[in-house]
């Protein structure tokens, strides 16, 4: 069986695409350089300047570098060649600029228009090619069947199999991948079209559709969300199992046919095989599930922690505790429980250390404000290099000690506090409603909390048989440490916002009305800080994705077989210079998701500032 080619049977579009891309690159570069200088009268000279500066920077860097590193640096002949190219390009640029100045009023704008036309042309050519390929793939096979003599005709089953293979080969790798993502394309189109129609009624989300960058970002993010959804729930899109190995497929190039594929099986490895003969494409698709579940959820938890601690830190000034308040009793009791728990679980020496630390904290809270204490703790965590922290926290040895579970006990408790305080501060005056809402939210949350923390064969195993949900300990430790790393930053942002909003009139009005401090924090300050928080939430999901990739890259936490992008990049990088195809797809997948989130955040920021 022939391997798949990238573009399938119809390659006529290549020459058109080449022309369009060349025009796009040339006009784009010219437009950029011309608009940098913004002087159409001196266009020729300025264009020369622009190109020369860029090239001189490159040449200069190489040259200085060669000198300072003492020989062995860049070759003089190469430098001379680069200078020659520089002179030629300069001359070309000068001539181009001169001509354009003579013919056009505003060369930069003309080039810009040409550039966007070229982009449009590229899109149209690609679209037409894709449509053509999808419609007419396998036409060669049809002709071949029509030409067969009736007695040479194979039976229907073989014919169908042959036809399927022929269609795939006609499509090529790109169109086949496009077809695999079909559910995603359909849903994405529906979402975008519906949102476009109702965009005026959709608030900030609807305004996103007025912003090209935001829309591109949103589409990229939704692409991966939908991919994770379809492959995680319905097992669509991916062609093979993430752990399936096929004989003879080790390090095979993209489009290699599967040896002895059975009838139900997908007959090709679309993006090749990795060093354990697994399908790169399926692993990339399956890897999205881990990221799409963990990254937003961990960010959400980090936000809960950051908000619950950051709002009071920014709102209350003056000493955090005094002798009379209830807070003193609560904090004292909490500290006592922690100290006792340590005493009974891990012995006297640890108990003494914890006792000293808690006593110092307690004393500090009487002296300094809550802000001072919490900010010191946040800065303490932030002073750690992230990777060092990961190497200390995310190891199988640490999982054995149960430390991630203890951290989960603390960190996962914050959402419960947050929701409880949120509801209680609002409905305090209506006891019936208050207790109803509290029960409706807190009981499920408490159950989820208990079963998540509890794990068989670990230090915390109280529930026993009642424990119906056990996250993989590797995933739990990754989750907890990512939340732990992210929360101090969120804390600082929320604290800053609270300090800023504190001085607004509506806060003073609420205080005059006699509202409680938690009502003011959660129902006056927090809603008014939502703009920056939403933007930061998007950015932070991207950052969390990068952190997850970093963990995978160092082989920490998740099992080495896991198809998540960081681990697959780590797998692929060992043979990178010989076989590049296993490492590149997950790298580009991660890149596109993070880029999408960043663009989305940028679009949201722009749109929310317009109000």
């Amino acid at each position: 069986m022939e391997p798949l080619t990238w573009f399938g049977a119809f390659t006529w579009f290549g020459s058109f695409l080449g022309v369009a891309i060349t025009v796009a690159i040339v006009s784009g570069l010219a437009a950029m350089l011309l608009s940098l200088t913004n002087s159409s009268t001196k266009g020729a000279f300025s264009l020369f300047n622009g190109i020369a500066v860029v090239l001189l920077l490159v040449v200069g860097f190489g040259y200085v570098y060669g000198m300072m590193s003492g020989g062995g640096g860049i070759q003089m002949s190469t430098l001379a060649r680069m200078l020659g190219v520089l002179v030629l390009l300069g001359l070309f640029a000068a001539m181009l600029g001169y001509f354009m100045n003579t013919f056009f009023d505003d060369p930069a704008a003309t080039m810009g228009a040409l550039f966007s036309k070229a982009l449009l042309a590229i899109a149209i050519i690609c679209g037409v090619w894709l449509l053509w390929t999808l419609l007419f793939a396998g036409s060669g096979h049809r002709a071949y069947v029509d030409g067969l003599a009736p007695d040479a005709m194979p039976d229907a089953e073989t014919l169908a199999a042959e036809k399927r293979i022929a269609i795939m080969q006609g499509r090529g790798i790109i169109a086949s991948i496009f077809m695999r993502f079909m559910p995603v394309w359909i849903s994405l189109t529906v979402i975008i079209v519906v949102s476009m129609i109702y965009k005026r009624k959709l608030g900030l989300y609807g305004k996103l559709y007025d912003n090209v960058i935001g829309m591109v970002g949103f589409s990229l993010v939704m692409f991966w969300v939908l991919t994770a959804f379809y492959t995680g729930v319905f097992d669509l899109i991916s062609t093979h199992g993430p752990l399936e190995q096929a004989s003879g497929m080790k390090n095979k190039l993209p489009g290699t046919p599967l040896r002895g594929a059975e009838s139900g099986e997908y007959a090709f490895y679309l993006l090749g095989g990795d060093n354990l003969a697994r399908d790169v494409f399926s692993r990339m698709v399956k890897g999205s599930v881990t990221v799409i579940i963990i990254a937003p959820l961990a960010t959400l938890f980090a936000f809960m922690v950051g908000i619950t601690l950051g709002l009071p830190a920014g709102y209350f000034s003056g000493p955090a505790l005094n002798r009379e308040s209830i807070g003193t009793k609560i904090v004292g009791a909490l500290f006592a429980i922690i100290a006792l728990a340590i005493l009974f679980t891990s012995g006297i020496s640890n108990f003494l250390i914890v006792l000293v630390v808690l006593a110092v904290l307690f004393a500090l809270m009487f002296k300094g404000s809550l802000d001072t204490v919490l900010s010191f703790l946040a800065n303490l965590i932030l002073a750690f290099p992230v990777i060092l922290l990961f190497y200390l926290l995310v190891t199988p040895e640490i999982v054995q000690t149960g430390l991630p579970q203890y951290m989960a006990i603390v960190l996962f408790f914050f959402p419960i506090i947050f929701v409880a305080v949120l509801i209680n501060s609002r409905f305090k005056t209506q006891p019936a409603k208050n207790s109803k809402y509290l029960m409706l939210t807190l009981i499920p949350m408490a159950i989820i909390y208990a079963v998540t923390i509890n794990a068989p064969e670990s230090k915390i195993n109280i529930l026993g048989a009642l424990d119906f949900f056990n996250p993989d300990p590797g995933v739990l430790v990754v989750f907890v440490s990512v939340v732990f790393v992210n929360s101090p930053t969120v804390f600082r942002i929320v604290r800053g916002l609270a300090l800023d909003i504190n001085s607004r009139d509506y806060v003073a009005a609420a205080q005059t009305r006699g509202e409680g401090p938690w009502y003011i924090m959660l129902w006056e300050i927090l809603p008014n800080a939502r703009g920056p928080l939403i933007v930061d939430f998007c950015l932070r999901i991207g950052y969390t994705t990068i952190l997850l990739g970093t963990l995978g890259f160092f082989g920490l936490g998740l099992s080495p077989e896991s198809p998540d992008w960081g681990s697959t990049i780590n797998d692929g990088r060992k043979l990178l210079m010989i076989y590049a195809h296993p490492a590149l797809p997950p790298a580009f997948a991660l890149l596109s998701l993070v880029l999408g989130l960043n663009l989305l955040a940028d679009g949201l920021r722009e749109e929310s500032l317009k109000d």
Partner: protein
Amino acid sequence: MGLFILRRLGVMLLTALCLTFVVFFLTNLYPNLEKLAKTQGNFRMSDEQVESYLTSRGYLQPLPRKYAEWLGIAPGYLSSDTEGKPVGRCIRPGIEADKVPTRCGILQGDWGFSTVFKEPVSVIIGTRLALTAKLMLWVMLLMVPSALIVGVLAGMREGSRTDRTLSTASIASTATPEYVSGVIFIALLASSRYGVSPMLAEAGLIEGKTLFKGTATTAMEAANFQNFFLPVLTISLYGMGYIARMTRASMAEVMTAQYIRTARLKGVSFRNIVMKHALRNALIAPFTVIMLQIPWLLNGVVIVETLFNYKGFGWTLVQAAGNNDIELLLGVSVVSVFVVLITQLLSDIGYVFLNPRIRIS
């Protein structure tokens, strides 16, 4: 000002103490010690053997005592193993038994002995830090000027096409972590089978098989453009976008200031407005960002040194953490924590010098 710096130094010392204690605590948890014993002794040790190994070397003392020994407040642990040879914290190969000091800790200037590299920690950190400093120097030389140029070009005309293009490019660069860009660069530029190298080699434009080298191991002794540019570029690219965006924001803000409008109305040329009036004020904010970026670069350094096999500080961190080399890990974390805190301090002080309107109380 003096008082401010003193107070900051005090906080810094306290932070360093807290953090080293946390590292100490985590590395001294029993499963970690067990791993240490097994990697140092052999992997088939029984539980009793592990315990006797750890006890004879003083690893099973109470935590505060061990920490005090590391600091050099308490005398170092000393005992003898089954054959009667003295073992303990302060015993180093090549030192006579009667010359072993009683205390050996940070206060005595002794950073301990690495169990992986079999060398004093101070020596390892010294040589590795020098290698990383070389890497960082070139990163700074490439990253800062290009980020500032991009930021100023984008910010001088807010909302223009240049601005939008450059801003999107800087967003893209912040969205590309080092392990992604590094992998892409190696595949594109340093592979003899993929990317541009085969084409260039065929055309006879480059000597050798690849345009750049995919590993930077040779760059430790003799760095040149070929073996060192890719790691430098990979680290710079991630930080570049962020600095560029900050510079852009600051430049855009300055360009809307009253005195710029005045200058424009007086008929000063655009080039002079940008170069003489706006630039100086616009570069104050990025200074802080650049200083605060240094600890961030530390992460990049760890990733890139692992990816390109450049045996510097980050590579040492990975080795120390992977093998639970307690004293080396403590040394590494002290250094990195001080890098973070000192850059914070410098950025605060530098900000005051650059912007006389700000006073530190």
